[in-house]
């Protein structure tokens, strides 16, 4: 692409800066990303170091967020847990977005038999409850980070494909696509250069919303013992480990829960902000 895309992104950056909600989302997601990247530097202790003299301590000096049943520092474990959660979100969403957008564009633009086959496949996938499918896959392939990526990625793509197909279907008869074909633009470029940018807004919302959903799903799977395996800390498995001590040491559940909520909230805010910022039809001025 030429200067158009540069213009689009430069403009998007400017507008993103002006939108308060998006700014907050960006700060939250950015903070979590930095925490995940710099975990070894930021964490006060290695996440696995146990201290059986100081178990189930409430938040206080030395351990700002307290300690768990093994005397491990909760703050350190939360910081390391961000790695698992964010990686799962990003990788699984990239996977489902790539597959979903490609199939959706092809189905919506080509129509006919192609559309029929792809959409029946999508419906087949949608018949399974998301979490059950993910659980089934994890059990079948054995728990582990790659299984998690694959399971959550496979759960996500049919929804994305359906969304993109709907957009493509609404746009396929627009004359600008015909104009592109009349100038000799090849089908790949028509799909990705002309059709895709016009489907971008809902895809961005779906991807950022999907990130939030992935973080939740990862937490659920980890809570069930099917996600990150001990001793790797993840927010979901921390919740799971803290559950028996809910009355004795509620901070074991509260802080991982807050971390999950914060991440989900941040991604949702960012998604809404990006949608507004990427739409060139919206005016540069708020209101």
């Amino acid at each position, binding site marked *: 692409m030429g200067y158009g895309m540069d*213009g689009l992104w430069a403009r998007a950056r400017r507008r993103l800066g002006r939108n308060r909600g998006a700014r907050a989302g960006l700060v939250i997601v950015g903070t979590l990303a930095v925490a995940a990247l710099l975990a070894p530097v930021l964490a006060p202790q290695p996440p696995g170091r146990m201290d059986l003299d100081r178990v189930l301590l409430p938040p206080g000096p030395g351990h700002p967020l307290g300690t768990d049943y093994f005397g491990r520092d909760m703050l350190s474990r939360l910081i390391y847990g961000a790695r698992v959660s964010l990686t799962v979100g990003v990788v699984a969403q990239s996977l489902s977005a790539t597959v979903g957008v490609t199939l959706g564009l092809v189905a919506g633009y080509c129509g006919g038999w192609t559309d029929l086959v792809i959409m029946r496949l999508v419906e087949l996938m949608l018949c399974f409850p998301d979490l059950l499918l993910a659980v089934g896959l994890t059990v079948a392939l054995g728990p582990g980070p790659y299984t998690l990526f694959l399971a959550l990625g496979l759960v996500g793509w049919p929804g994305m494909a359906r969304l993109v197909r709907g957009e493509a279907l609404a746009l396929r008869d627009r*004359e600008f696509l015909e104009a592109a074909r009349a100038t000799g633009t090849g089908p790949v470029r028509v799909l990705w*250069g002309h059709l895709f940018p016009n489907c971008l807004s809902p895809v961005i919302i779906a991807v950022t919303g999907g990130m939030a959903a992935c973080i939740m799903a990862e937490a659920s799977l980890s809570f069930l013992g099917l996600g990150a395996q001990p001793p790797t800390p993840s927010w979901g498995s921390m919740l799971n480990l803290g559950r028996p001590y809910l009355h004795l040491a509620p901070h074991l559940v509260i802080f991982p829960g807050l971390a999950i909520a914060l991440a989900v909230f941040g991604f949702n805010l960012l998604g809404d902000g990006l949608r507004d910022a990427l739409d060139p039809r919206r005016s540069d001025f708020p209101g």
Partner: protein
Amino acid sequence: MPGKRRQVAVSGEEPRGDVLVEVKDLKKWFPVTGGVFGRLVGHVKAVDGVSFYIKPGETLGLVGESGCGKTTTGRVILRLLEPTEGAVYFEGANIFDLNREQMRRLRRQMQIVFQDPYSSLNPRMTVGDIVGEALEIHGVARGRSKEKRVRELLDVVGLNPQHIRRYPHEFSGGQRQRIGVARALALNPKLIICDEPVSALDVSIQSQILNLLEDLQAEFNLTYLFIAHNLSVVKHISDRVGVMYLGQVVELGGAEELFANPLHPYTEALLSAIPLPDPELKRDRIILEGDVPSPLNPPSGCHFHTRCRWVQPICRDENPPFVDVGDEHFVACHLRKTREKQ
């Protein structure tokens, strides 16, 4: 369709030498399916045997009411749709015999300006990218030289070259149509198909765009196929005019000649419907009875016989031939001779 070659049945002799485009017995039928199993129940005969030619540097107007197949004809000539039957010769070569790569190269020679300036420009692309994309795809220019050429084109169509980085929504309808014209001009085509280019515009803007098209034609020696339903516009801009009814061209002739001396009863009725600017003037309007029959099941014989006031038994049985009555004035009517004598 990758590499799909279509053998077309062509009636008649070799293509004419002195024309830019020749359309021969072109048909485009859209299949209609019904029921659970998508059974074929019939065809919409959008274009049903159309023949005409366009000479270099002239404007051929194509008029007819909505649904008569004008737009489909334009799309098939550009091979945006594949024909059911027939041939289109561009500079002597049948475009339906070309492979994918040959067709891609030929697209430099023929371009289109669309009716709706709102849906014909990609809202996510800047004017620079919309107009310049063709240059990039055909390897004519990229980077700085592309930008320079786009600025020139914007200037030629009467837009401010500094607006190259703007998006389509920042322009008015007339300006957007100018962007569409600039895009069509980018590759220096020989033929531009104007598909109702002014129908969506305000009357005051219409004349601006028409003048622009005429100026460009003179400057770049362009050939236009001008599709429209506004008779005054067509009369103004065209050298020759073809009248379409239900997928067929019923009459074709020089603009002056056709408007002064219509031979087909449908053309007569159409011309009598042009509003006169003087409210005092009265004239005999020919009111056509009924509606246009469905193209799904067009009438036998002459397609117009269900509404023709001169209808004879022969009209129901035989499709009239499209014959030259002299001076390149063609008409498809059985009664042309008998009525002349009256």
